[in-house]
Every structure is written in structure tokens, then in C-alpha cells.
């Protein structure tokens, strides 16, 4: 187990290293960053000054090492779009709003998905199972950005129950959270269903039934406890996918989180902030998959020796 964890952490570090190379080369691929920063009527002197200031005349590997060192120190430079703020500071600030949205969305989608998944497994091929399948299918087919607009149209424009966008009261978080969690409901429900089907088929569930326990106790206590392991490990993946989901959802609902920061940075070509966001996203992704793999290996010893 220890060997597996060490190996897996090593792989994670290699992936992070590769991401840093990709991030670095993305910003250098289309010529000098000075082109973006300087206006059209900039003189050669301006170019030279900027190039000197940013070390653009140094050999590439040296520039990369400086970049890597700065990333490790959490220093990615100042934002161009928001002067006076460092890119690092901005990403951390905005992460809080995204975290709030993600946690709320996660709890809502779990509360909805787990019972439906269990009911679908218990009533396999009955109407409730079909309802579950329809939800799963819609979850895969409805584009989230459009779903958000439809919600706005129904609940904010027509019914006037909820505010259209922004962050503030509890009412503000409802629609973005639903939009974000929609796809996850489908995924968790399907996982829950298949894992529950396996669990209902085991010896200990049969034993519980023979003992004369009520069906409710058999399903919701004995079977569910064991079936919950698979979806639990999936939560790492969900957490990571909320990050990408945040870009779309926060754009639709003007939620001031990390996703809308990414979009604003892209629109204003703020390279330092884009770099910070990409590094953060990749870091969370790699960390999440690391945790998931270790959890899996802990729960299922066969994986350790592959």
C-alpha cells in the first residue's frame, strides 16, 4: 500500500510538471507576451524595456525555471486587468464563491440522486426505474448553459420568484446550484443504482431478509451502507468537474467565482490570471484523482498490485 501511494504521488507530480510546461508554452507559443501588452503604436524602445523587465531575452529554459520557481512560491505576477492585485490573490478570493456554490450544489444533488438511485435499484424495470433513466438521459443531453437560461426564463422572468443573477441572498444560489448539479445527479444516480443492484444480490442482504428484518431496514441500512462506497469514491471526480462546470454556470448567472474570473481574464487577455487559474484547476484535478485512486486502492486491494 505504501509503495502504491508513493508511486501514485510520483505520477501526480510528473503530471503537474507536464502541466506547468504546457501552461508556460501556451503563453509563449504565439510570440512575445509583450505584443499583447503593448499598444499598436508602441516603439521599439518600449518593446526592449518590457522584454528586459520580464526577462524575455533570456534563453527559454531559463525563463521556464523562473516561471516554475515563481509558481512554487505562489507568485504569478500582478494582474493586468485588475491593477494592484496579484493573480494569486484574485484566484484565492474568487475560489471562495465557487466553493460555496459547489458545496451547496453537491449536497443538493446528493440528497436528490442517492434516494432515486436506491429506489430505482429496488424497483428495477418498474416505473421509478424508468423515471431515473429519463433523468439520466436528460442529464447527459441538456447543455448546462441553456438549462441555466431556461431556469432564468421560468423562475426569474415569468414567475419572478428568484433573482436572475449575482450573488447575495440565499435565493441567488438556488438556480446556479441546480444547473451545476444537474449532470451530477444523473451520474451519481446511475452509479448508485448499479452499485445498489450488486449489493442487493449479496449473501448478507439475503441473510438480513432471512432474519426477518423489515424491507426498509434491509434496503436503507444493510444494502445501502455497502453500496455507498462506489459513489463515495466518485465524489473526488465530481469535485473536480465542478471546477469546469463553474466556468459555464458562473458566466450564465454572473456568479463572481473562479469560473467567471477565468472568462473575464480570457476576454481581457490577462495572461497572469489565466496562468494562475489553469495551475489551480490542474492542481485540483490531479489532487482529486490522486485521492480517488488511493481511496480505491484502500477499499479494493486488487488495484494495488496492478
Amino acid at each position, binding site marked *: 500500500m505504501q509503495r502504491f501511494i508513493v508511486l501514485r504521488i510520483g505520477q501526480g507530480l510528473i503530471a503537474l510538471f*507536464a502541466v506547468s510546461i504546457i501552461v508556460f508554452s501556451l503563453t509563449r507559443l504565439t510570440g512575445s507576451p509583450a505584443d499583447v501588452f503593448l499598444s499598436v503604436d508602441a516603439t521599439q524602445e518600449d518593446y526592449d524595456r518590457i522584454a528586459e523587465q520580464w526577462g524575455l531575452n533570456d534563453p527559454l529554459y531559463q525563463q521556464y525555471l523562473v516561471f516554475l520557481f515563481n509558481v512554487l512560491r505562489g507568485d504569478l505576477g500582478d494582474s493586468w486587468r485588475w491593477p494592484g492585485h496579484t493573480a494569486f490573490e484574485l484566484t484565492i478570493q474568487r475560489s471562495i464563491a465557487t466553493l460555496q456554490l459547489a458545496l451547496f450544489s453537491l449536497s443538493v444533488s446528493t440528497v436528490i440522486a442517492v434516494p432515486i438511485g436506491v429506489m430505482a435499484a429496488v424497483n428495477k424495470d418498474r*416505473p421509478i426505474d424508468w423515471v431515473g433513466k429519463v433523468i439520466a438521459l436528460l442529464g447527459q443531453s441538456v447543455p448546462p448553459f441553456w438549462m441555466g437560461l431556461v431556469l432564468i426564463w421560468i423562475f426569474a422572468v415569468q414567475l419572478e420568484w428568484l433573482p436572475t443573477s449575482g450573488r447575495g441572498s440565499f435565493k441567488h444560489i438556488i438556480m446556479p446550484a441546480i444547473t451545476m448539479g444537474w449532470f451530477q445527479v444523473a451520474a451519481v444516480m446511475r452509479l448508485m443504482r448499479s452499485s445498489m443492484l450488486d449489493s442487493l444480490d449479496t449473501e448478507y442482504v439475503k441473510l438480513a431478509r432471512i432474519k426477518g428484518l423489515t424491507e426498509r431496514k434491509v434496503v436503507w441500512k444493510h444494502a445501502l451502507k455497502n453500496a455507498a462506497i462506489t459513489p463515495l469514491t466518485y465524489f473526488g471526480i465530481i469535485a473536480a468537474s465542478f471546477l*469546469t462546470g463553474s466556468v459555464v454556470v458562473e458566466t450564465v448567472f454572473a456568479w463572481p467565482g473562479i469560473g467567471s474570473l477565468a472568462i473575464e481574464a480570457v476576454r481581457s487577455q490577462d495572461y497572469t490570471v489565466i496562468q494562475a487559474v*489553469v495551475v489551480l484547476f490542474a492542481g485540483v484535478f*490531479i489532487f482529486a484523482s490522486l485521492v480517488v485512486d488511493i481511496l480505491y486502492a484502500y477499499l479494493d486491494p486488487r488495484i494495488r498490485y496492478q
Partner: protein
Amino acid sequence: MNGQEQLDNNRMSFLGGAFKSVRRFNHYPVIPILIILVLLVIPAIFADLLAPHESRAGGLGDRLIPPMWLEGGSSEYILGTDRVGRDIFSRIIHGSRISLVISLIGIASGGILGTGLGLIAGYVGGWADAVIMRLVDIGLALPSIIFALALGVLMGPSFATVIIVVTYVLWAYYCRQIRGEVLRVKSRDFIARAKVSGASDFRIIRKHVFPNVTNTLIVLATLQVGFVIVLEATLSFLGVGIPRPTPAWGLMVADGREYITSAWWIAMFPGLAIMLTVLALNLLGDSIRDRLDPTLRQV
């Protein structure tokens, strides 16, 4: 069993029967295929004949006309017009061409790259396998949206940007799946016999390994058409996909976003087109998978 229960059971079995016949019907995916033809393929091919209006230009006098069944609508613009007076119905028809072409090219390039590397990784093994699989890990680690945003800034929104992003997203899935299949096939008897009879590695891959993974390829590709259409629409919606004024569905939804309070039809109908098309494609993909390779249910 009392009378009420008996009644409930009968009702259940009636409903169950109805659902069963729906499921039987599902074995011949007639409705999905019809939706795909009507919404995606036919308009994509005959867009110029079918669209009643110009897709990129409109009259400013005809701005924000509601759909024909609403007050103020006209039968000339069935689904209404957008903020510069372009006919939404015509733009949806033209948009299907973008969706179809992007998904075909994107899946082809991602599939070819991923399959090629997957074949090599699985068949050659050793260091080639290690390097390729680490690349897959990295590919899956860097989120597609972020990659797309970074690329969109550098290259600007364009057709090529979308294709590169789609390829980047898809290849790792193909590579991982195909590698697994190859590992299974490789240990089979006929591969060893082909080796003994002196066939070259290239010939073995081409004649003996590849034909055994084509089912997986077909299933993966059909299941991904819908995914790619949503991905392209999302990129266009975020402004890093297809550039204006090309009529792409995601872009049309983005254009309608500001008008959601006053002219909801601008965003609603293109989104509906995406949803129905993707729904039909997923149903079709599911039924193809069930027929060709039920073991792929987890994909």
C-alpha cells in the same frame, strides 16, 4: 390480497407492459434516427435549399420579431428573428451544418490519434506504453474548458480552435479504451500463431488486432457525437468556439442571453435543437452499444 392491492397490481402490470413495449421499440431506434435525420443530417446537407432566409444577414426593420404563434409574429419568420433581424429558423438550419461537420471532423481526428497511440501502447508495451499512458493522464488532468480558454485566447475563436480542443479532449478516451482492448486481444492464440507464421508486427496490428477493436471504436464514436456537439456549443457560448456571425447553435444561445427577459425565443429554440439532437444521438448510441458490445456499458 385485498381488492385494492389487486387493483394496484393490475395497474402496475399495465404500466410495466407499456414500458416494456417502449423498451422493445427501443431495440429499433426509429425515433432517434428520425430526429437525427430531420434535425441534423438533412438540414446540414440541404441548408441552402431549406432555409427560407439568409442566415448571416437580416433587415434591421425586422428586429426581435416573436415566433409566428405569438402576438406580433409573422408567418414569414416561423421562430422569430434575433436582435439584428436574422431569421432564427434559417439560422438553426444552417447551424446544424456546423454541429455535424465539427463532430465528424473532431471525432475522426481524435479517434485516429487516440486509436493509433492506443494500438502502439497496447501492442508494443514497455516504455512506449509508459510514455503514452502518462500523456493520457496529463490529457485527462488538464480540464478541457481551461485548455480551450487558453487556446481560444492564443488562436482566437475559430473552426480550427474547436477542432484542436475536441481532438485534445477525445484522444485520451480512445487511447485508454483501445489500449485495454489490445491488451486483451494480444494474449489470444491467433496472435501468437500469426507471429509464428512470420507476420510482421505492422501486419499483425492491421490484420489481426485492429479488426478486433473496431466494434469498440464504432460504439465510442457514436456515443461521442452528442458529447462533441455539446462541447462545441459550450465553447461557442463562451466565445472561444465558432466566431460570429457564423450560425452555430451555441453562439445563438449566447446571443439570446442578454435578451432572455424580453425576447426569450432567440436563446430557446437553438438550445432546444441542441437538446433534441443530443438526446436522439445518445439513444442511438446506447442501442448501437447494446447490440455491438454490451460490455461497454460503463463508457
